[in-house]
């Protein structure tokens, strides 16, 4: 391997010392132009939303929403969304759904993944397949019965109904990912603990779970984002404004303030803040997370 990489390295350093614009540099520059153009084009919807959100409604009507430079700068739209728009309540509700849901789904799926990755018994593969197959079901297939079930259990229009379906549905994906990860943990480790007399519960809690921290972190980030952004289950299971989450509150703004796009864009940006923060802070886990364990 060393003699393969070597010529490339020298060739590169020679090119660098010559400082000429060889075909390699030209191609590289071209790639940067293409990538930068795409990246900038990709940001246009977001940037235009930000631009709208910091202007006053009066400025937009008087000078047109895209006049540049803007005749106003304000953060009042964000304040209005947070207070009058009710987003402080929507945020609280969403956190009250997402945090317990993520903790519960990780705990429960780590149990199944632990058993399925450590023990082979009749039907263990079938059970794994059931979990994996379920993770791709279209939500619409579950919608009517889950809606009826929530009514039946008297949890319709409560945050609990959302926690329940989120935890249950994501068991498939989390079990799948954690199972993949746990298989890479050497059997000797758990065997040694067993020989020392540790109970199965202790092996799970004190040996396997701490080792799964990277996978759990990756899953927590992904699931936080997915559940924060859920819309279908909220509009199916929640009716009252008091129990609305961020996505429901957002779509409700359109009816209430039909023409105030400054407020709507501000609220949209607010709604995205937690997931953007989670993404930026945990970027590495986020990207690696989708394939944890499968490539080692």
């Amino acid at each position, binding site marked *: 391997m060393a003699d393969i990489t070597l010529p490339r390295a020298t060739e590169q350093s020679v090119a660098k010392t010559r400082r000429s614009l060889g075909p390699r540099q030209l191609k590289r520059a071209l790639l940067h132009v293409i990538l930068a153009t795409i990246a900038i084009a990709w940001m246009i919807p977001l940037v235009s939303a930000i631009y709208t959100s910091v202007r006053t409604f009066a400025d937009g009507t008087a000078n047109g929403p895209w006049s540049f430079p803007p005749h106003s700068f304000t953060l009042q739209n964000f304040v209005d969304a947070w207070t009058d728009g009710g987003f402080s309540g929507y945020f609280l509700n969403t956190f009250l759904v997402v945090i317990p849901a993520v903790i519960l789904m990780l705990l429960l799926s780590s*149990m199944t993944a632990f058993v399925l990755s450590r023990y082979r018994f009749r039907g263990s593969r079938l059970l794994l397949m059931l979990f994996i197959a379920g993770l*791709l079901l279209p939500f*619409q297939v579950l*919608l009517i019965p889950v809606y009826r079930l929530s009514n039946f259990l008297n949890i319709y229009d409560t945050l609990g109904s959302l926690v*329940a379906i989120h935890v*249950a549905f994501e068991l498939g994906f989390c079990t799948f990912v954690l199972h993949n990860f746990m298989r890479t943990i050497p059997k000797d480790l758990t065997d040694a603990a067993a020989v020392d007399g540790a109970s199965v519960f202790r092996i799970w809690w004190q040996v396997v779970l701490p080792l799964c921290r990277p996978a759990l972190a990756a899953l927590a980030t992904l699931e936080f984002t997915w559940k924060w952004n859920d819309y279908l289950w909220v509009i199916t299971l929640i009716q009252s404004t008091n129990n609305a989450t961020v996505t429901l509150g957002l779509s409700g703004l359109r009816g209430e303030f039909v023409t105030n796009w400054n407020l709507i864009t501000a609220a949209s940006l607010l709604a995205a803040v937690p997931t953007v923060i989670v993404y930026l802070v945990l970027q590495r886990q986020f990207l690696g997370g989708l394939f944890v364990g499968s490539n080692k």
Partner: protein
Amino acid sequence: MTTLVRGVTKVFGRKRVLSRDRITLVLFMAVPLLIYAIWVWGPALATVAISFTRWDNVSAPQWIGLHNYTRLFQDPLFKQSLINNFIWLVVFITIPTTAGLALAVILDRKLKFTRLYQSAIYLPMVLSLPVIGLMFTWFFKPDDGLVNTLLGLISHGNISPGWLADPHLALAAVLTAAIWRHVGYVMVLYLAGLKGIDPAMREAAVVDGANEWQLFRRVTLPLLKPVTIIVLVITIIESLRAFDLVYVMTNGLEGPNHATELLATMMFNAAIHNYELGYGAAVAVILLLISLAFIITYVAQVMREEEEV
């Protein structure tokens, strides 16, 4: 039973499984399975049963056999939804997947600013679909949206399509938003896949004199096959699940002349808005049947990888 006992004894280094451990193991499997059965597989089966009934959500459901399905196949709205879902699927399986793959291959070269480019393209995945939907509604607004403002500048006000209000363009506008989001997803999946490829494989091909296209076509792409299968399945399932963007962007759920009606929105309208639970369930069953083919492909691929390890 003997295999179970033998397997368990092996794991525990010939020690017998204590009864407290047995209880833990059973609980570890049973609790999540029960929840999964009640909220996922149970409802999926119940939907199939409901599709054979007439049910208004108030009185008891009435068994009507295949009536919902015969009605479905005569319903022009169903045909429209199927066509739209098909268009969505074809567009989704071609444009964002190719773009995502190309971007991943380029970004895998570790150019400068890779992180920055990657973040810009991935960022939409972090936003919720209602946020994206509202942003693009604002973007495509006919009178003073950014798109038409720019078009107006270029054409001196001669071109100003209605986008979401135009039956011919509404689906395209919604799809633009969906593609904007999906490219980053595909890119990230492929980037993760490319990281898993042994660099020696590609270096060997370079030594053998392969040019870049040959390298991609004959080495990289075949090695990415498992990722490609996952990307395709996810893309297909995402297009079958598509709902939120249509719901938010064409406010009235189905757009002008049902131009953006999809199976998912049709199902939701029937069940939740019109209280025709049986009819809605029939649409859901059609969705399930279409998905099932891809779900099986996916499970087979995953299980195959499982055996390789």
